[in-house]
């Protein structure tokens, strides 16, 4: 049964080949159906693997033969079936299939409908290669592949008219560069691994490392720090997170699949996969936890101040990824993976619900220059889009961490782990949890409650069935997803233990759960206070909140001001400066400097023959001088 694993990758590839070959001949939604079918079959294979694993939880490695042989260095086409990889496969193909189906509705009528599904299938294949690879090199192939698909999908609408197409392709470029910096870290880590262990096979590397390296060995620290660089790129952590908000330029299903549910979690997966190395490097573990925590807090506070419906979710994603990274940094691998799974459910749901809203509002809009993503133009959609609203609500509450929804249990496990090991991190993450509840409730109130604040909002309507069914399925999963790893049962923990060998099972801590629940409720209440009662017509609730605060000197407003507006403004200024100075242009300061140097070097190509010959003579003179100096002048 384990031998089926190459099929998981082969099926999406088959799907994309069919679409590539027949793309022009397929009419209507056919291309989408082919792609969805391919994804669905891959999911079925993953389920079969799951069943096989029940009998043999240790899993197996399926090798298709040698790939590279360089002297003693060998890399095989080998795929690993174990509880960790199958968990990832299920998430990727399961959520992936739903998003494929949703896209059939969302991308309807797009000029490049078939191409979109080719990209989606390609992404799926690369992501599955990433999670099933049995060695770092094969993992890297998948890693690069998902990056490439992300680039293609972010820039999917690069030919839109006006500045928008330019912005889209710029966003794609930025994502590509931030990712490639991370990739370089991974590449260097692989060099170091090869240099130290002479192999890139997971089993060889981890086995040798555990035997030959002491805890805290500088080599382990170096390698894991380089891996971490890769993680920060792909999983959008500090300092490379800046590409993810811009990545929202892509079509919403791509955002849901790649930039929320799957690709961005690759970093978390990598850390869990390389857990034996990270265990040997306590320093890196601390760095990972700190990076994750800071990212979570920073991103959550930024999410509070956004008006673009997708940007809120983008920052929320960064923040939640921070939670996961912090968890694996604390050594709570199960908690991290648990949150990865539940987050895939509810964040994909939130994105697709947001997509449904955008779709609905955009259809209601009658003017061309209308921003269908601005929440200030929405409001009161509860009645106009009931299915979207209810499913969205399930996702939002799960994200906010209200019991008994999925997010509550997974987040709670992370908080408990932090509470036991690192109180500071616990405090910071709890604040983040409070902010999370606040910003997602703010979004809910702005979008769905009150009265419509634009003409478009009055004319919005719910999306078609093909888009709503995936929403409903994911909503159900968001509600009951916590059952995967209920306190006391630890199904997922016991399952993953076969791979991670993590002995410690998360303990349920009533205090932690209580505090976070109360804070989540407080956050929602606060949001209701500020946004839920918002009379129609006022365009800018945040500004008006500030106005009220100054006018009435109400302590809640002052607190609000102190807590959010001030820091937020400072932060946003900081971020803006950072963005302008460092991230703009080619993507990074490095990019700018590079372009400047490139321009300077370009000038040396004068095109004048005399100078060309001078180059030759100068080269000769310099080499001769070096030789002369070597001779000991």
């Amino acid at each position, binding site marked *: 049964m384990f031998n089926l694993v190459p099929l998981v990758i082969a099926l999406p590839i088959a799907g994309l080949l069919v679409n590539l070959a027949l793309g022009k001949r397929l009419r209507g939604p056919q291309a989408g159906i082919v792609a969805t079918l391919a994804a669905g079959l891959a999911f079925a294979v993953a389920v079969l693997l799951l069943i096989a694993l029940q009998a043999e939880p240790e899993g197996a490695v399926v090798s298709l033969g040698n790939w590279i042989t360089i002297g003693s260095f060998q890399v095989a086409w080998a795929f690993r079936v174990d509880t960790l990889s199958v968990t990832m496969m299920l998430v990727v193909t399961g959520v992936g299939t739903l998003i494929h189906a949703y896209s059939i509705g969302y991308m309807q009528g797009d000029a490049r409908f078939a191409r979109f599904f080719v990209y989606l299938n390609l992404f799926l294949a690369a992501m599955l290669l990433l999670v099933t690879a049995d060695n770092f090199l094969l993992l890297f192939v998948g890693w690069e592949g998902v990056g490439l698909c992300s680039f293609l999908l972010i820039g999917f609408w690069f030919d839109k008219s006006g500045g928008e197409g330019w912005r889209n392709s710029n966003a794609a470029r930025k994502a590509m560069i931030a990712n490639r910096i991370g990739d370089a870290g991974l590449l260097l880590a692989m060099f170091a691994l090869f240099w130290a262990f002479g192999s890139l096979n997971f089993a060889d590397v981890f086995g040798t490392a555990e035997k030959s390296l002491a805890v805290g060995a500088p080599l382990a620290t170096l390698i894991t720090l380089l891996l971490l660089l890769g993680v920060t790129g792909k999983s959008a952590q500090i300092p490379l997170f800046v590409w993810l908000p811009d990545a929202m330029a892509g079509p919403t299903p791509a955002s849901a699949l790649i930039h929320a549910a799957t690709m961005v979690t690759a970093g978390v997966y990598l850390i869990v996969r390389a857990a034996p190395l990270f265990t040997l490097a306590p320093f890196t573990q601390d760095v990972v936890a700190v990076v994750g925590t800071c990212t979570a807090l920073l991103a959550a506070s930024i999410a509070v101040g956004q008006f673009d419906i997708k940007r809120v979710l983008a920052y929320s994603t960064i923040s939640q990824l921070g939670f996961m990274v912090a968890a694996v940094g604390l050594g709570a691998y199960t908690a991290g993976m648990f949150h990865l799974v539940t987050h895939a459910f509810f964040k994909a749901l939130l994105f697709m619900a947001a997509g449904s809203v955008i779709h609905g509002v955009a259809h209601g809009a009658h003017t061309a220059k209308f921003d269908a993503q601005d929440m200030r133009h929405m409001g009161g959609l509860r009645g106009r889009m009931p299915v979207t609203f209810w499913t969205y609500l399930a996702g939002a509450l799960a994200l906010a961490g209200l019991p008994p929804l999925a997010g509550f249990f997974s987040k709670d496990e992370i908080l408990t782990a932090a509470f036991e090991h690192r109180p500071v991190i616990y405090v910071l993450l709890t604040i983040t949890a409070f902010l999370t509840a606040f910003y997602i409730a703010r979004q809910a109130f702005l979008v769905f409650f009150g009265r419509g604040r634009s003409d478009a909002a009055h004319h919005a309507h719910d999306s078609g069935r093909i888009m709503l069914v995936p929403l409903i399925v994911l909503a159900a999963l968001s509600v009951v997803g916590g059952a995967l790893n209920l306190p006391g049962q630890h199904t997922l923990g016991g399952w993953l233990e076969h791979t991670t060998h993590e002995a410690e099972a998360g303990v349920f801590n009533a205090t932690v759960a209580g505090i976070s629940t109360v804070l989540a409720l407080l956050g929602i209440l606060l949001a209701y206070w500020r946004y839920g009662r918002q009379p129609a017509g006022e365009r800018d609730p945040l500004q008006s909140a500030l106005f009220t605060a100054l006018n009435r000197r109400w302590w809640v407003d002052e607190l609000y001001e102190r807590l959010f507006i001030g820091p937020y403004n400072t932060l946003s200024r900081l971020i803006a400066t950072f963005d302008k100075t460092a991230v703009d242009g080619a993507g990074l300061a490095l990019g700018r400097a590079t372009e400047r140097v490139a321009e300077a070097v*370009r*000038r040396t*190509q*004068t*095109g*004048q*023959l*005399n100078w060309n*010959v*001078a180059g030759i*003579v100068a080269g000769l003179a310099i080499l001769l001088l070096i030789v002369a100096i070597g001779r000991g002048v």
Partner: protein
Amino acid sequence: MTSLNIAIAGALVLLGVGLYGLLIMRNLIKIVIALQILGKGAILALVAAGAISGQTNLGQSVAVTLIVADTVVAVVGLALAVQVRRRFGSLDVNELSTLRG
């Protein structure tokens, strides 16, 4: 000063004059002339090298080949120069710097 040393010195000085000419001359035909001067230096060097190592024949026979090769290059260069003059109306290499950057 033996005649061999003179040949070697000659080769080096001709090399220098030729390279200098290549650097400062802008007329295409004069650049071909500079290449020829370089070639004369190389011929002297080869013959002298053969004599120094006692392989006089070897040095001289390869020098003959060098003369032929140099001539072919000069001929192609001159043909190019004539064509350049037809197209550009000038032999100035500075005119030939449209391809840059």
